[in-house]
C-alpha cells in the first residue's frame, strides 16, 4: 500500500487555485475546494459569486485559466461533460434534464444505453439495475412510469438515479431544493446522507443557509469569486454564514411590524381557470386582501398559483367566478386596464414575463408605462424622460449596473429583479401582486425586496404574495392561504402559523380523501 498512513485522507476531489476570467470579471479567483470521500460538501454563495463557474470548470464546460483538478490525488484534465461523466463526476442541474414523455428507464438510458447486442437495448438488465439502485438508496421506483407524471421530488430522484446508473462517485447538485416542499427536501436529504455513507462524495450548491447547516458535513463559502471561509456546521450559525456570504451583517428576517388592515381591496369569488393545456388549474378560489395587509399564498409550485395570479391580473381568462377591485368588477380585464387601475404585478418568471432581456435597462424600467406621459407624448417617445427616470430608479433601488443603457439580460438575477420591483413599485398602488418575487435571489437582494414590500404594505397597499418558498410566506404574511389542487384549503394567521403544519397542508391539502369529496361535488 502506498497510501499515506497519517491522518490525512486523500480527497476524492480537489480543485486547486482555480482562476477563471471573463472579459471584465474574474469569476473564480484562485478557488480551492477539497471534497473527501463520503462527504457532503456545501458550496455556499450568493448568485454571481462564482459557484456555477466553478462547477462548469469541474464539469468541463469551462476551461480554467489557472489551477488544477485532482481526482483521488491525481491531476486530471477534463475536456468536456462526457469526459467528466466517464471519470465519475455527475451533475444534477437545477432545471432537470429529463424528457417528460419518456419513462424513467428510457430517461436513464438516454446517452448511457445498456446494449444487449449491437442493435438492441437490454431493457431487462437496465430495469433490474434501476430497481436495485433505487432500493439500495431507499427509494423504489417503477422504471416504466412516465417522468412527466412524477412529482418534482421524484423527478429529482430520477436525475440522481441517472447519475448513479452512470457510476457517479462525485455528485454535484445545483440548488436541488429550490422546487421542493419541506417534506420532499427532508426526503432528498435522507437520500443524500445514504449516498454519502455508501462512499459517494456530494457537492451541494445552495444559498439557503438552514439547509446547508442541516445536511452538510463541511461548508465552503465563496464571495466574489474567492473562498471567504470554511466552516463545520457545528461551529457556525445562519447569521455567521450570511455575513460571510454577503460580506456585511444581514438581517435575515425582515421585521414586518404590525399591519393595519383597512377596507377590502381585492375580492376573488368562485374563481376557476384552466392551465395552458386546458386542464382545470384553479378550481373555485375565494379570497380577500385588505388594504395594508399581506396575504401570502403557500403551496407547492404547480398547484394553480400561477393561473390564479394570471387570472386576477388579466393575463388569463377565468372560466368562472369574479374578481373585484375596491368594489368594481374587473373580471377578465386586460393587463393594461389593471395596470391603469393602480394594480402592479411582479411575475414569477422574470425572464419570460418581467423583462425583455435584449432591451436596455431604461426601456425595461418603462415596460409597463412606456405609453404614458412623461415617457411618451402621443406616439412619440420621450427619451430624456425615460433616461432620467432610469437614472433615478437605479439609484433609489440600488440596481447595480454600469449604466441604464446596458441590456437588462447582462445584469445579475438580483439586479434584474430589482429592476422589475423598481418599475412596479414606483407609484401609488392599490394592489400589489407578487408571484415568487425572490426566487433564485441572494440574501442581500431578498432582504431589499422584502423591505420594499413591507413599505408598500405600510403605505396602505393590499399585497398578494405567492411563493413556493414557505419561509418567505411565513416571514412576510399577515395571513396565509394554503393552495392545493387549485383550491385554497386553509387560511391561517401569519404570526402564529407553524411551519410543519403549513408544510403538511401544502403536501396533502390537509384532508383525507373523503373530506375533499363534498367540495369536488359542489364544483
Amino acid at each position, binding site marked *: 500500500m502506498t497510501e499515506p498512513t497519517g491522518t490525512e485522507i486523500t480527497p476524492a476531489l480537489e480543485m486547486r487555485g482555480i482562476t477563471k*476570467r*471573463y*472579459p*471584465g*470579471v*474574474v469569476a473564480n*479567483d484562485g478557488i480551492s475546494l477539497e471534497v473527501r470521500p463520503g462527504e457532503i460538501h456545501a458550496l455556499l454563495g450568493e448568485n454571481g459569486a462564482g459557484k456555477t463557474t466553478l462547477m462548469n470548470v469541474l464539469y468541463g464546460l469551462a476551461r480554467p485559466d489557472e489551477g488544477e483538478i485532482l481526482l483521488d490525488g491525481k491531476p486530471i484534465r477534463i475536456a468536456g461533460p462526457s469526459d467528466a461523466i466517464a471519470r465519475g463526476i455527475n451533475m444534477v442541474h437545477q432545471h432537470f434534464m429529463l424528457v417528460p414523455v419518456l419513462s424513467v428507464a428510457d430517461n436513464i438510458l438516454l446517452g448511457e444505453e445498456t446494449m444487449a447486442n449491437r442493435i438492441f437495448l437490454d431493457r431487462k438488465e437496465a430495469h433490474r439495475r434501476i430497481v436495485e439502485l433505487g432500493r439500495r438508496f431507499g427509494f423504489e421506483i417503477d422504471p416504466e412510469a412516465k417522468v412527466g407524471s412524477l412529482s418534482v421530488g421524484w423527478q429529482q430522484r430520477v436525475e440522481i438515479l441517472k447519475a448513479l446508473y452512470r457510476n457517479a462517485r462525485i455528485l454535484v447538485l445545483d440548488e436541488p431544493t429550490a422546487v421542493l416542499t419541506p417534506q420532499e427536501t427532508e426526503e432528498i436529504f435522507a437520500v443524500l446522507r445514504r449516498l454519502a455513507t455508501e462512499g459517494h462524495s456530494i457537492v451541494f450548491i445552495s444559498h439557503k443557509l438552514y439547509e446547508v447547516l442541516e445536511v452538510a458535513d463541511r461548508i465552503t463559502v465563496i*464571495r*466574489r*469569486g*474567492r473562498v471567504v471561509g470554511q466552516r463545520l456546521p457545528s461551529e457556525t450559525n445562519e447569521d455567521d454564514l450570511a455575513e460571510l456570504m454577503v460580506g456585511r451583517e444581514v438581517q435575515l428576517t425582515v421585521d414586518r411590524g404590525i399591519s393595519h388592515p383597512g377596507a377590502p381591496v381585492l375580492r376573488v369569488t368562485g374563481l376557476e381557470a384552466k392551465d*395552458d393545456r386546458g386542464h382545470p388549474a384553479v378550481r373555485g378560489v375565494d379570497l380577500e386582501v385588505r388594504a395594508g395587509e399581506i396575504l401570502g399564498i403557500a403551496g407547492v409550485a404547480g398547484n394553480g398559483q400561477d393561473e390564479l395570479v394570471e387570472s386576477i391580473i388579466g*393575463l388569463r381568462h377565468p372560466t368562472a367566478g369574479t374578481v373585484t377591485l375596491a368594489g368594481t368588477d374587473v373580471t377578465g380585464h*386586460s*393587463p*393594461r386596464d389593471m*395596470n391603469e387601475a393602480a394594480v402592479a*404585478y411582479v*411575475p414569477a418568471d422574470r425572464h*419570460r*414575463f*418581467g*423583462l*425583455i*432581456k*435584449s*432591451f436596455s435597462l431604461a*426601456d425595461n424600467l418603462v*415596460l*409597463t408605462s*412606456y*405609453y404614458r406621459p412623461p415617457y*411618451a407624448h402621443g*406616439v*412619440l*417617445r420621450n*427619451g430624456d424622460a425615460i433616461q432620467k427616470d432610469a437614472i433615478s430608479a437605479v439609484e433609489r433601488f440600488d440596481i*447595480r*449596473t*454600469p449604466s441604464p443603457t446596458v441590456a437588462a439580460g*447582462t445584469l445579475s438575477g438580483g439586479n434584474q429583479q430589482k429592476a422589475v420591483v423598481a418599475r412596479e413599485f414606483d407609484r401609488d398602488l392599490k394592489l400589489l401582486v407578487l408571484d415568487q418575487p425572490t426566487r433564485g435571489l441572494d440574501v442581500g437582494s431578498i432582504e431589499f425586496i422584502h423591505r420594499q414590500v413591507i413599505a408598500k404594505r405600510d403605505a396602505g397597499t393590499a399585497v398578494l404574495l405567492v411563493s413556493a418558498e414557505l419561509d418567505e410566506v411565513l416571514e412576510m404574511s399577515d395571513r396565509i392561504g394554503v393552495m392545493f389542487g387549485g383550491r385554497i384549503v386553509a387560511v391561517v394567521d401569519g404570526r402564529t402559523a407553524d411551519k410543519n403544519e403549513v408544510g403538511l397542508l401544502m403536501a396533502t391539502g390537509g384532508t383525507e380523501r373523503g373530506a375533499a369529496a363534498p367540495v369536488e361535488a359542489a364544483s
Partner: protein
Amino acid sequence: MTASAAPGSAPSRPSASLGARAWSVVAVPLVVTVLSVLLGALIMLFSELLVPGKKFDWGLPLAAYSALVNGAVGGPDAIVSTLVYSTPLVFGGLAVGFGFKAGLFNIGAQGQFLVGALGAVMAGVALANAPAAIAIPLAVLAGIVAGGIWGFIPGFLKAVSGAHEVVSTIMMNYIAVQLLAALVSGPLKVPRSPSPVTFDVGNAAFPIILAPNGHLGILLAVLAALFVWWLLYRTTWGFEVRSVGANRDAARYAGMRPKLITVATMTFCGALAGLAGTSVLLGVTHTMTSSFGTTVGFDSIAVALLARSNPLVIVPAALLFGGMRAGAGLMQIQAQIPVELVDVLQATILLFLVASPVLRRLLRVSGRDAGSVVTGATVSSLGSGGVAI
C-alpha cells in the same frame, strides 16, 4: 484580455471607441462580402475549365469584377442606374427587416411586391390622363393598399389561428403570381395586343429627378428608410413592435396586444413591399407584362439579413445588391460572364451570413448574428404558432 478588473466589480466593458463600435457593426457584412467576391472569382476560374479549347485566363475574375464595378459606379449614368436598381430593394428590405423586428419572417415580400405593382398599374392606367398631382399619389396609394392587403391576410391568419407566416406568405406568393398572370392576360390586357401587356400608366408615372432615368421612387425609398427607423426607435408603436419581437410574453404582460401588433406589422410590411412593386412599375416599366416579377422580393430578404434589419443600414445593403444588378450587364458584355453570377454572389453572401457566428468568433466581435435573427424569429414564431391562444 489584459484587463482584469477587481473581482466582483460590475461587468463593464471599457468604453469602446467610435471606430471599434463601427467596426463591430460593419465587420461581418464586410467580411462576408469580401469572401463572396473571392468565392465568385474561384467559380469564374473554374467555369473557364468547362469551356473546351479556350485559353485559360487568370485575369478573368479581375476583368469581370472591374466591369461589374464600372457598370455600377463608373460614371453618372451607372450610378443612377444603381440607384434605380436599389430602390425596390430598400422598400423590400424594410418590408422584411421590419417583420424581423416583430419576430415575423415575411417571406411573402415577393407576393406583396407583385400585388402592390398590380394595384399601382390598375390605378395608374385608370388615371393615366388625370393630372400627375392626382394620378401619382393615388397610384402609389393603390400600390400600398394592395400590398398591405397581401400582408394583412397572413397576419390575420396568424393572429386568429396561429397559422405560421412562413407557410402562409409562401402560399400568398403563389396566389399573387397566378393572379397577376390572370389579370394581365385577361381584363387588364391591351385588346388585340399580341402579347399580354397592360396599358401605360401615363401621367401616373414617376417623374425623373436624376437624369437619365432616376425616378421619384429613389427619394421615396430614402424617406421610407428614415420613416421606418423613426417609427421603430422613436415611437411607442415601434417600441411595441420590438417588444413583441423580442419577447411576446413580456409584451403581453406589459399590456401590449401581440396579436393586434402582429396583424398591424404584417400589413405594414405588405405595404412597404407593395411600395417596392409600385416603384418599379411607376418608375421603370410603366406597364405590366405577365413576366413582370423579378426576384426583388427574395433579394429583399438578403438585404434585410445583411443589414441585420437596421432600417438605416438597409440603404447601403440595398445599394450593394442594386449595384451588382446594375453592373451585371456590362460584366456580361465585357467579360462574357453571365449576369447570373450576381445571383451566385448574393447566394454566397447569404450562406456566409448564416455562418456569421463562426465569423464573429474569428473576428472577435460581439453582437447578434443575422443567422440568429432568422432562426430566432422562425423558431420562436413556429413555437408560438402551434399553441397560439
